[in-house]
């Protein structure tokens, strides 16, 4: 296995990608799970398909198109939500379906044979290019700096944004920064698990970590480690079996979540019995 990594560049790229996406997915995943924004993230991910289609149609990097669509969907949905109360799930649904429809339309408009977009929809960690890697490295760096450096502010904001507003913090700006980070994280994850499975890589490591610790920073660290475990497992299964990396990562992650859940339930029950 190690020999293969040393020998093949695509495996080296895939391994570096696993580390990068685990970092962003762990940090942002815990935030979206705590903030109950998993469905919003799903909406942003699916909207980005429009950008992938546009990239193919106009001949530029599809991930750049995904970036533009994801950021527009994230900030646009927040803007509309702030002006119209009580319609957030409807806005998510509209962006979600509009993005997918545009993607299908743009790809249909491409003359000749349509391109193979399977790797964008379902992910293929083994097909990461140098440009993809550079983009993911930049995204990881941005997410890492913004979350870690201002960790105390984020914790206060996530618990009670109203209180941080009263204190004089620029809560609306923080909210938009957070949505921007979610959007770029989605873009970083597309090559690994695909648009359809992005929310799984964001929510499963975070949810598994939440079963094991009740400290926010430890949840983030554990979510990063779980993400790393899932992606590396998916990478090697995919490399040796040619199965879709995204599907393998998600199914393995789900299995780990279930085992962790049952394990923690069992330990709680044992402790209760001992206490009696």
């Amino acid at each position, binding site marked *: 296995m190690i020999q293969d990594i040393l020998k093949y560049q695509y495996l080296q790229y895939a391994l570096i990608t696993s580390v990068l996406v685990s970092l962003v997915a762990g940090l942002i995943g815990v935030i979206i799970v*705590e903030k*109950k924004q998993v469905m919003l993230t799903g909406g942003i991910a699916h909207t980005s398909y429009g950008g992938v289609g546009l990239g193919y149609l106009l001949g530029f990097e599809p991930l750049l198109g995904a970036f533009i669509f994801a950021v527009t969907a994230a900030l646009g949905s927040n803007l509309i939500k702030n002006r119209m*109360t009580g319609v957030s799930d409807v806005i998510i649904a509209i962006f979600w379906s509009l993005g997918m429809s545009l993607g299908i339309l743009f790809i249909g408009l491409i003359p000749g044979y349509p391109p193979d977009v399977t790797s964008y929809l379902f992910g293929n960690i083994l097909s990461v290019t140098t440009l993809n890697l550079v983009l993911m490295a930049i995204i990881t760096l941005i997410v890492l700096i913004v979350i870690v*450096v*201002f960790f*105390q*502010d984020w*914790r*206060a904001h*996530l*618990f*009670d944004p*109203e*209180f*941080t*507003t*009263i*204190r*004089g*913090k620029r809560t609306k700006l923080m909210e938009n920064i957070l949505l921007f980070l979610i959007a770029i994280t989605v873009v970083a994850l597309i090559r690994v698990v695909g648009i359809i499975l992005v929310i799984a890589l964001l929510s499963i490591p975070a949810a598994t970590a*939440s079963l094991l*610790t*009740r*400290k*926010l920073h430890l*949840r983030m660290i554990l979510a990063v480690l779980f993400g790393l475990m899932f992606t590396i497992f998916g990478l090697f299964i995919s490399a040796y079996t040619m199965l879709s990396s995204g599907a393998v990562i998600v199914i393995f992650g789900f299995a780990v979540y279930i085992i962790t859940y049952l394990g923690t339930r069992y330990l709680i029950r044992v402790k209760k019995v001992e206490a009696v």
Partner: protein
Amino acid sequence: MSNLIQINDLCVKYGKIEALRDLNLTINEGEYIGIIGANGGGKSTLLKTILGLTKQYKGTITYNGTTLKKSNLSIGYVPQTNELNRMFPITVEEVVLTAKIPLKKSFFYRYSDEDHKEVNTVLEKVGLSKIKERQISDLSGGEFQKLLIARALALNPNILLLDEPTAMVDIKSQKQIYTLIKRLSREMTIVMVTHHVKDITKQAGKLIFLERNILAEGDPEEVYKYAYLKPVGVLNREPRSREVTRV
């Protein structure tokens, strides 16, 4: 008694719904004001507008004669608990410490010994110092309310605004919270929104009966009688007079 907050002709609308209409109110230093009224009568809106959370309003609000930013007024706020995520992974001490994060230059902020000391002092004041390491998901309703009061106190406020601090709390905890607020009223100005009319009537120095605007204000016993002799909860009716009934 100096004038801390002066509200003139305050109108707040949420779309077409009028939450507050032509409201005039003076909050003086050292006052303990209770606000009662039916649900949807604008009580929480009034507190949120004072705090600057509601930006769209007509009328004027001055704080020590100037704007909120320019005034040296520190306002503590205890929100309704149903607005918060009780399962959030954070301890009692960490919640109160959030009041100590500096407004600027908060990058890589580590709480100082002074921060911990001040937080411990307020936790002792509200009776939570022994459970400061506990997660908020393990707190009772009463303990959680006391925690939110402690966080507000950590700002060293001149004035404390409380929005239904005894809602969804058992009777024993309600009494403890009222005793705590009574004690705090000797140190700072208190404005409390509540549905526990009898309790607030016994404690407050002034009671306000609010339904979009102030229908009655003054001596708590008299306002209580006024409010409960009239039909409460009919929000669509016009107030009998634009003049506030001072009783």
